């Protein structure tokens, strides 16, 4: 019953219920299938053979099988290859710049802090002077 070109329905797994063709017989238990399912190795137990047989070569390519399936107006599964996106690479120079900027900012803040303390001291001195002046009066 199982031969090259035999139409079958897959009864187990993700592709269950899909029509497929036997493309190659691998050994006593396994065959290569294609068509409505993904092109894959499959155990004979997981196939329910149908009456129809297609004329295809042994080990026919996915395109050949697709053409035959379209003639019979059967659904064909076509998978697109995954689009891989390049990861953004980190540039070291940019990082250094950021660090420098940060240091500069810190330095500036420190300078400002010193200034503030100086200003406070001056204020305190002026206050003392004014108080002393009042006492003297």
């Amino acid at each position, binding site marked *: 019953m199982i031969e090259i070109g035999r139409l*079958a*329905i*897959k*009864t*187990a*797994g*993700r592709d*269950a*219920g899909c029509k497929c063709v036997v493309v190659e017989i691998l050994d006593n238990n396994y065959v290569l299938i294609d068509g409505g399912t993904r092109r894959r190795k499959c155990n004979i137990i997981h196939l*329910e053979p*149908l*009456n129809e047989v297609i004329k295809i070569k042994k080990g026919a390519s996915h395109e050949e099988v697709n053409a035959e399936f379209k003639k019979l107006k059967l659904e064909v599964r076509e998978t697109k290859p995954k689009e891989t996106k390049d990861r953004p690479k980190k540039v070291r120079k940019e990082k250094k710049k950021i660090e420098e900027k940060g240091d500069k900012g810190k330095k500036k803040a420190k300078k400002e802090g010193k200034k503030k303390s100086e200003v406070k001291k001056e204020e305190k001195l002026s206050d003392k002077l004014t108080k002393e002046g009042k006492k003297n009066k």
Partner: protein
Amino acid sequence: MPAPNKRSRTFRRVYRKVPGGKTVLHYKKRKPSKAKCGKCKAILKGVPRERPYKMRTMAKTKKRPERPYGGALCSKCTREVFKEKARSKK
């Protein structure tokens, strides 16, 4: 003494270890019954037994097997269904 509604066994008791190091008794609602096959009533594999709030957070692929009738029929019954379909087409 626990609150009156916690004295019955409607809530299941779960021991939890808290960050302080103590083991504390938590009262939680009971889990729903296991998912069963629509045809032969066998317990389905690959379907988690959780409350709806947890099922909502789970991914779709984690809640049922990824095959036609997954989460509704068992694997044996799905095979039978597809075999019957194939044979009826002949």
